[in-house]
């Protein structure tokens, strides 16, 4: 059939669609999981943290305005600078780019929502509650004071015995959860929920940027999770990973932290670059020049950013050869960024730039970010870094790249996209003042810091003596900081006067932009899902907006009566099936709050209430999952244009299969970080490792664990056959699963007990500690499999599992297979390495 479909639409179609996507009324608005609501509050919360951390920055700048100032004492100042960095990086920058993608990504792809709406809501609420409590630790002198990088031993039990550092680990815990959840959403969202026809070569640059972002989160955050796990274990139970006297090494933390921390800078920057590549073509009214090069640059940046973490550690005394490699890699990463900058300039040249506020912020971004990139190249040069490292030169550089590379595009994005979500646009007149104040203030504040640093002023000092030549530049920096604050304050005025969020009747496409988020939309996004034939469909496909709004394209209604979106194939975006999506839910909200409470209570060491909260969280997650996996609840439904699609799918084309793969990658990376730590500590203190004769377990014990694992694998395989062959799963399935999980637990207990009985204790040495970490990691996965297996058995008993309705079983099986593989590798490392290496 021809598109657009010219047949009149049935009368009740729009009503059904609106009813399915209706915004819950009254207090139940808290239960909404739709991406527009969650995205808006997500970005709002991130911006709140930007303001709070900004206030902390003003406190610091006031303290440093004059030498020997006594406004803030050392203890307070150290908490303030630690919180400023931590909040800006973890509670503002990452959540902000994630929130924006929750808000915009589905609309840019004309999807009705992200594939896991409740997961987004869960991640948001856990982040908001956890973040606010974390911030409040400042008021009780309990805030962390070890710097946002938290180097042990300063942050370990001996030199920071209070709860302060634990609050940092807590704050990070939330952002780890929400970042991983976001990565799952975004990978699956970008790959499987694009509008039909939006093949990879027609995918907007922003989607590419978010895909690379999500992949980077998958490979970077696990290092952070591993690092924070080790630090918390050392703090709470004195497992000596970083204690030199017991064979540990403080530098191990730095490797893990920066293996995450450096990609993290690009995790913040790439989404912003993606936004620039969306906004600039619209403001210049011309397609992006060099689309393919820009996409290649994004991917290249993602790869390279994992090879430069050591440039934060040039001064730790590493061999010259390693430093040379990282010097080269750190310089190389500027090439893909250069490509993007020249592509933007070329785009400006190709079109006619309209000087609206978003344009101003993008030009400001180019100015500031190019400068920051150039000082970045300077810092990549090892000898120069030996001088500049940990001075105000670096403070200047990092603000030029992060404030320049992320905050300027963010403001451009606010001014650019708010018309798509608000009944009024922001003010052009106020916006120019906002830009002017922030741009001038930024440069007045941060440019002098280059000089202050080279004049010898180290970072993270709460005061400085007079007469060092630092007085004037510091005063200037303070003046600039207040100018920025004035600009941000004026922006708030603009928001209050003009931001009127509305999912329907927004002012709409005032820029005459070409991408799909500018389609007329409601809570359900666009009325129908267009067939896309170009990168800027609104420019190239005449009358598209009207036809989409008239329901002339795919899925113009809600054929199942519930919230749903189209799942399309990853490369060519061919329609595969209609995904039925969960709607508003108290379960996700309560689960999030209980999760936050669980970690908070753990931090202040109220174990019983913490366990209670953890139990509530688990029950709520199960409650919310129970209604998912609906099975093929009805026959294939029409999505318009004569196409019938199934409403359920399992296996490699289903969204949940992809989510499990992503989770597997996260788990594997985390495991790899522990394995890295094992071998790293071995090279640092080989004397701690057992000689071949004194390995903690006998060959027989190892064989016992191995047989248990293999038995579990065989039974799982049998269970899969049992499920596939019969319509109703026989009791044999449940029996096989029960035995298989028992063997898996048995393998773990067997290995754990062989270590324990040999007398090895985790507090003995770095060797013992890392061995028990590998065991504990395996134990954690086994526990998760245990829960998943019980859940699967319960669904089988409840009659919710059969040869068709089997996503639950498939997901459990994938995670199970991963856990067994990890178990085998753990065995091989713990017993094989000391025996054979």
């Amino acid at each position, binding site marked *: 059939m021809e598109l657009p479909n010219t047949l009149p639409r049935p009368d009740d179609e729009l009503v059904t669609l609106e009813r399915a996507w209706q915004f819950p009324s009254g207090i139940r608005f808290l239960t909404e999981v739709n991406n527009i609501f969650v995205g808006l509050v997500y970005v709002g919360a991130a911006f709140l943290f930007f303001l709070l951390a900004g206030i902390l920055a003003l406190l610091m700048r006031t303290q440093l305005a004059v030498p020997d100032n006594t406004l803030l004492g050392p203890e307070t100042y150290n908490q303030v600078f630690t919180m400023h960095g931590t909040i800006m990086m973890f509670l503002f920058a990452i959540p902000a780019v994630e929130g924006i993608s929750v808000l915009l990504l589905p609309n840019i792809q004309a999807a009705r929502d992200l594939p896991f709406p409740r997961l987004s809501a869960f991640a948001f609420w856990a982040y908001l509650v956890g973040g606010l409590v974390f911030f409040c630790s400042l008021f009780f002198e309990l805030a962390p004071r070890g710097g946002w990088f938290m180097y042990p031993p300063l942050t370990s039990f001996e030199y920071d015995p209070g709860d302060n550092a634990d609050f940092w680990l807590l704050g990070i815990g939330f952002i780890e959860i929400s970042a991983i959840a976001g990565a799952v959403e975004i990978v699956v969202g970008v790959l499987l929920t694009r509008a039909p026809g939006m093949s990879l070569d027609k995918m907007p640059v922003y989607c590419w940027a978010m895909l690379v972002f999500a992949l980077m989160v998958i490979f970077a955050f696990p290092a952070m999770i591993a690092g924070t796990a080790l630090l918390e274990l050392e703090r709470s139970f004195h497992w000596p990973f970083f204690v030199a006297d017991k064979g540990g090494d403080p530098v191990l933390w730095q490797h893990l932290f920066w293996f995450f921390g450096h990609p993290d800078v690009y995790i913040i920057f790439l989404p912003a670059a993606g936004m620039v590549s969306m906004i600039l073509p619209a403001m210049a009214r011309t397609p992006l020049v060099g689309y393919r090069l820009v996409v290649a640059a994004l991917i290249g940046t993602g790869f390279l950013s994992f090879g430069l973490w050591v440039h934060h550690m040039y001064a730790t005394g590493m061999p010259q050869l390693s430093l040379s490699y990282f010097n080269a890699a750190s*310089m190389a990463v500027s090439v893909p960024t*250069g490509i993007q900058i020249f592509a933007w300039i070329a785009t400006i040249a190709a079109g006619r730039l309209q000087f609206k506020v978003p344009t101003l912020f993008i030009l400001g971004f180019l100015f500031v970010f*190019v400068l920051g990139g150039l000082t970045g190249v300077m810092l990549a040069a090892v000898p120069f870094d030996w001088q500049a490292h940990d001075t105000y030169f670096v403070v200047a550089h990092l603000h030029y790249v992060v404030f320049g590379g992320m905050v300027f595009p963010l403001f451009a994005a606010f001014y650019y996209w708010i018309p798509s979500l608000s009944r009024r646009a922001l003010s052009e007149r106020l916006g120019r003042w906002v830009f002017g104040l922030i741009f001038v203030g930024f440069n007045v504040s941060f440019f002098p810091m280059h000089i202050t640093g080279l004049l010898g002023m180290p970072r993270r000092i709460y005061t400085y003596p007079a007469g060092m030549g630092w007085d004037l530049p510091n005063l200037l920096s303070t003046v600039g900081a207040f100018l920025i604050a004035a600009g941000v304050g004026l922006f708030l005025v603009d928001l209050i006067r003009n931001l009127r969020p509305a999912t329907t009747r927004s002012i709409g496409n005032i820029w005459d932009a070409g991408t799909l988020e500018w389609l007329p939309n409601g809570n359900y996004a666009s009325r129908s899902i267009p067939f896309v034939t170009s990168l800027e469909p609104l420019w190239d496909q005449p009358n598209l907006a009207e036809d989409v709004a008239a329901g002339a394209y795919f899925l113009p209604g809600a054929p199942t009566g519930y919230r749903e979106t189209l799942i399309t194939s990853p490369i060519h975006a061919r329609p595969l099936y209609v995904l039925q999506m969960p709607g508003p839910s108290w379960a996700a909200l309560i689960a999030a709050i209980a999760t936050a409470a669980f970690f908070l209570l753990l931090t202040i060491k109220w174990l019983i209430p913490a366990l209670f909260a953890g139990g509530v969280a688990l029950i709520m997650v199960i409650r919310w999952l129970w209604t998912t996996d609906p099975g093929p609840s009805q026959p294939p439904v029409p999505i318009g244009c004569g196409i019938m699609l199934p409403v359920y799918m399992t296996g490699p084309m289903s969204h949940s299969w992809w989510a499990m793969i992503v989770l597997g990658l996260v788990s594997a990376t985390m495991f790899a970080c522990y394995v890295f730590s094992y071998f790293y500590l071995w090279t640092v203190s080989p004397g701690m490792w057992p000689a071949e004769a004194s390995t903690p377990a006998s060959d027989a014990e190892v064989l016992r664990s191995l047989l248990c694992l293999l038995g579990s694998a065989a039974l799982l395989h049998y269970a899969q056959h049992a499920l596939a062959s019969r319509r109703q799963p026989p009791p044999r399935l449940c029996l096989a699963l029960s035995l298989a999980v028992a063997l898996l637990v048995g393998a773990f207990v067997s290995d754990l007990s062989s270590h324990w009985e040999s007398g090895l204790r985790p507090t003995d040495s770095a060797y013992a500690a890392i061995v028990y970490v590998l065991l504990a990691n395996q134990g954690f996965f086994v526990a998760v499999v245990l829960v998943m297996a019980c859940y699967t058995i319960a669904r089988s008993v409840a009659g919710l599992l059969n040869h068709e309705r089997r996503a639950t079983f498939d997901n459990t099986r994938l995670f199970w297979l991963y856990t067994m593989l990890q178990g085998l590798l753990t065995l091989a490392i713990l017993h094989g390495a000391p025996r054979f290496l």
Partner: protein
Amino acid sequence: MTRHSPQSWLDAPTDRIQSVLHPQTPVAQLIADLGWVMSVGAVVIFVGVMVLAAYAVAGRYRERVARLRFIVGGGIALPLLVLSGLLTYSLVTASRIVEVDDTGAVQVHVIGHQFWWEVHYLKPDGTIDAATANEVHVPTGQVVHLQLTAQDVIHSFWIPNLAGKLDMIPGRTNMLRLRVDQPGTWRGQCAEYCGAQHARMAFHLTAQPPADFANWLAAQRRLAALPKEPFLQRGEHLFLSADCGQQECCADCHTIRGTSARGEHGPDLTHVGSRHWIAAGTLPNNAGTLAGWIASSQHLKTGSHMPSFDRYSGEDLRALAGYLASLE
């Protein structure tokens, strides 16, 4: 700047004694040169890109900029060319810094503490020849091996005028090779955040002609002189007394070689009177500041590990400070 003797350095302008921009050794000069070359290059590139962007906005033939060839040239070819050159320059500079003629090096062991520097001069067999704190002396024209480590948390050893920084990490020893050719005194400061008083963890390095250095080292090696004046004897008695009214007294943490004071937590005070600063570069050293420091260290340097001893009478405090000031 380079000419003043160690005795007159208090009068020297302080805004040049802790500065990357005023290099005083060949190594610091190499780095400063690299910094200048890169700064000038950065300015040129920055201005070029900005001019290009302005041209793209409003230039007459701006459509010529809107080409793929331009992106490939400006974004790939040019950076690769410039960066290859810079990488070579950077690596050559690094290797020139690391390659130092090592013969006959003076061995100094510097240990970072929260928030001060312990300094040991080593004999050829590695045992301690002399101990001091917060002050490093080196002979001019000779290579000095500074063996850097830390007692508690990570610190970083940095004298901007003389060399790049090098971390002091518990359990590891990093070696900084330093050669200063002209006499002078420079200020160094801890460059790795190390806790409450990271801001006030400074030290001074004095380079002096080899003969002066040898005299200084010989003086440091000596045991503390016994005080002759009764007032100073009273000070010594107070220092060594275990009954100072507080849990820990002077001698629990400090050593004065030649007396019974054998504490190891704080700086060695055997020749504290010869130093120009106290409290790791926080206060100039004289009997008055010493008395103030003893009585209210927690006020002057909140969070340092030296408690305030505010129970001494004024007379006792003066005696104690006078005794310490006399330990030259």
